[in-house]
């Protein structure tokens, strides 16, 4: 007798992959960025599907396939989840402490740098308040696009 295709194992693995690959998508939105709960939700759904699939494969081996590939897919999913957690909770947090960074109430260090049109721009000019407006500047230091 041909055994049933154990779809939930594959679906579970795909959800785990989606949980990992969707990080660059969800990180664009404030709601899903600060804590990657949307990714964890996908991993969670994947986990449940894998458990369902494995229960079928090992509980009713005569009805369902998947003892071998189900185990492989589950191990791969766990590895993907581990890699995701490592990146999000460890690697992305490897930043210098910046203990000497200027603090609230201090004068911002003055600078003059070229902008994208190679025009020299000074902080003193940036913070000038236009007529009737409070004025100021937001400095966004970023890693670069290389």
């Amino acid at each position, binding site marked *: 007798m041909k055994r049933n295709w154990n779809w939930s194992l594959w679906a579970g693995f795909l959800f785990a992959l989606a949980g990992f690959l969707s990080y660059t998508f969800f990180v664009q939105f404030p709601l899903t960025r600060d804590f990657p709960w949307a990714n964890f939700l996908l991993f969670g759904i994947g986990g449940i599907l894998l458990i369902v699939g494995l229960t079928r494969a090992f509980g009713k081996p005569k009805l369902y396939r998947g003892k071998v590939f189900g185990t492989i897919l589950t191990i791969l999913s766990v590895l993907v989840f581990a890699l995701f957690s490592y990146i999000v909770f460890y690697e*992305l947090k490897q*930043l210098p402490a910046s203990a000497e960074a200027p603090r609230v109430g201090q004068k911002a260090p003055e600078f003059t740098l070229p902008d994208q049109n190679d025009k020299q721009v000074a902080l003193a000019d940036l913070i000038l308040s236009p007529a009737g407006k409070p004025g100021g500047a*937001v400095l966004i230091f970023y890693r670069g696009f290389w």
Partner: protein
Amino acid sequence: MRSFQQRLSDFDTRGIRVVAISVDPVETNQRHCRKMGFTYPFLSDAKAEVIRSYDLLHRGGGPKGADIARPAEFLIDSTGIIRWVNLTESIGVRARPEEVLQIFDELSGKVAP
């Protein structure tokens, strides 16, 4: 970066300039701004001198062990005094424009529009 471009008019109405700073050369910034449609200044601190003076240098954080800036945001008022600092703990988590606007409005004692 994109989110700040989208809210740029809200910064304009308050007279706040949005400024991005990295070690990227002018050519990279020019190309990138054209491609992404960024209209606010992207400053090139190729030698990381300003980044160093703000103690934001991430040694070896870039490609091939290059020194780059760690992500950080500063709100500076029109007298040059720093009013708010955000030193993120994760590269993936950056300040949102809404957050900066709200803080600015609170500091200037006005109700957010």
